[in-house]
């Protein structure tokens, strides 16, 4: 009767044990990598192409060439029937799906390979470029968006004044302003920053206004019975009260800003990590393309984890969770 149930992996609405949580985090990353490995290294899985080792009697086959399997089979059959030398080859994937180890190597070589032309940039320079664009776009947006959001969330007056128009504007896709941004701001950094700004700002005001509105109203009432008025209510109750949630919002919004980066960098003169990716795709270095895309993910996730860790230290009163 009193048998301890095996690990409760599937109890609804129950947290897993810390160890199990760690295991699942690792598995969550291993699973897609495993899938990728299967498709790359198991020859009879997918592999729609054949890489030629030995052209045999087929005149247009060359060693190292990738051909469709159907074509290869047809030519092999033809050669067999004519009793000529049969071409040799091994199953391969299309060039746009490099194997994990190739991408792994690219992580290193992408940084160590000098650019093909003198005017072009190293990968780390391109990355730094992108980070700067993100930073300035997000910083400028927050500089105006955060105060505006808090005002709109606190006072109905500002909510009615700003939110209807912003609600309309946020449906306009930021990239649609690309041509306009270039016409006004030139072709270098400025229009890219503007796109990130437009993509972030309008969402930011609305999200932060909503977060501010969710502040426990009884805290404001308590403050009022303690003699707090207007400015003190705003700066000593509303602002510190919403700060932890506002910080969480900013982390999410920063993620959105990254999604606008790729579009933003295509505007005017292509630059940054996007330039690197398009350039490498042009050279058919798809391992580098994959590596660059993953680097964006790694930068994003690392920043977010760092900010989450920092948040726990900035807001010690939140350490035991808001849920309690």
């Amino acid at each position: 009767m009193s048998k301890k149930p095996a690990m409760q992996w599937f109890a609804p609405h129950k947290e897993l044990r810390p160890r199990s949580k760690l295991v699942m985090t690792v598995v969550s990353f291993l699973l897609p990598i495993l899938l990728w490995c299967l498709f790359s290294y198991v020859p009879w899985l997918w592999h729609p192409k054949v890489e030629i080792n030995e052209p045999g009697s087929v005149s247009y086959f060359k060693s190292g060439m990738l051909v469709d399997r159907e074509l290869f089979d047809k030519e092999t059959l033809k050669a067999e029937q004519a009793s000529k030398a049969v071409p040799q080859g091994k199953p391969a994937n299309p060039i746009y799906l490099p194997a994990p180890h190739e991408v792994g190597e690219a992580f290193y070589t992408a940084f160590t390979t000098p650019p093909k032309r003198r005017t072009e940039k190293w990968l780390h320079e391109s990355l730094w470029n992108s980070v700067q664009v993100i930073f300035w776009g997000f910083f400028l947006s927050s500089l105006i968006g955060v105060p505006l959001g808090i005002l709109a969330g606190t006072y109905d007056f500002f909510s009615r004044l700003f939110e209807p128009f912003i609600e309309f504007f946020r449906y306009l896709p930021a990239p649609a302003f690309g041509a306009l941004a270039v016409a006004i701001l030139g072709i270098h950094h400025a229009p890219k920053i503007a796109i990130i700004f437009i993509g972030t700002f309008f969402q930011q005001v609305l999200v932060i206004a909503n977060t501010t509105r969710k502040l426990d109203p009884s805290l404001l009432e308590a403050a009022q019975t303690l003699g707090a008025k207007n400015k003190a209510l705003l700066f000593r109750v509303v602002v510190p009260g919403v700060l932890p949630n506002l910080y969480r919002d900013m982390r999410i919004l920063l993620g959105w800003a990254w999604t606008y980066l790729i579009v933003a960098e295509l505007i005017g003169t292509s630059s940054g990590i996007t330039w690197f990716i398009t350039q490498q795709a042009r050279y058919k270095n798809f391992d580098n393309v994959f590596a660059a895309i993953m680097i964006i993910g790694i930068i994003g996730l690392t920043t977010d984890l760092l900010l989450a860790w920092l948040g726990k230290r900035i807001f010690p009163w939140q350490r035991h969770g808001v849920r309690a």
Partner: protein
Amino acid sequence: MKHLLDLPSYLEQDDEVRDRFDRLKQRPVALSVEHLGKEFETPQGSVTALQDINFKVHKREFVCVIGPSGCGKSTLIRILAGLETQTTGEVLLDGKSVYGPGPDRGMVFQGYTLFPWLTVHKNVMFGLEQAGRGKDTAAEEASQWIDLVGLAKFEKSYPHQLSGGMKQRVAIARALANQPRILLMDEPFGALDAQTRAKMQSYLMEIWQNIDITVLFITHDLDEAIYLADRILVLKAHPGEVQEIIEVPVPQPRSPEQLLSPEFLATKKRLEDLIHPEQEEEGTNSDHLNMVRMVPVDHEVESVF
């Protein structure tokens, strides 16, 4: 039923108690509520929450407000605190009418409402700083109030690290630090377990006896009202009106043993009659559910009696 105690009338007061009430009524009036009314607009039309409420609270008196749910006791205290505006009537504090919230009327809420981002010490300092006290004086005064509620060791703690009872003690200290003319308490111990609540009641009595403070205390707990109050304001619902103002005949200072004294029980009986009159609730046959026997006749426990 037999064995019901033969209780005196709740109106009977011994000489000491009567003498005390005579003196109490000689004291200046701290809070005066005159013809107070409140109507709410709802989609179904306007609803009268409070109608023609009149009462006075004397200096350093402890008044409890009690009533069935929906009698508007919370609305009443929120109007007194200035968090809601009345439709008619006036609230006078020391003879002057008051509008809007202010530090002259301290409030303790059921939900603690401590600022989670401030330590206990900073929470108590909040009102003092709003009053324009310098940082050092505010800090010093706050420490004294925290010491008074016995939480000196927890000055540096954040609210989430405290138990419910401790949180409410901080809230009381925070309200008292402003030295309000009256302390309004809206079911402050409602969320606490029975043991903690009893302890908090004793603490509050001690504080009230030693500090120049008038208290208006809302509760739905009859024992709590009788144990704490000089007088009990009984409201009735739909619309909220004053039903009776009871002078509690239990002598002061109070102690937990009095919970079983004849005066106490007589007062409780009176409150029960006022607040829980015999009435039919939906789906029940007077006091009983419509139950049929659902235990087999040969069950191992055939009857619970």
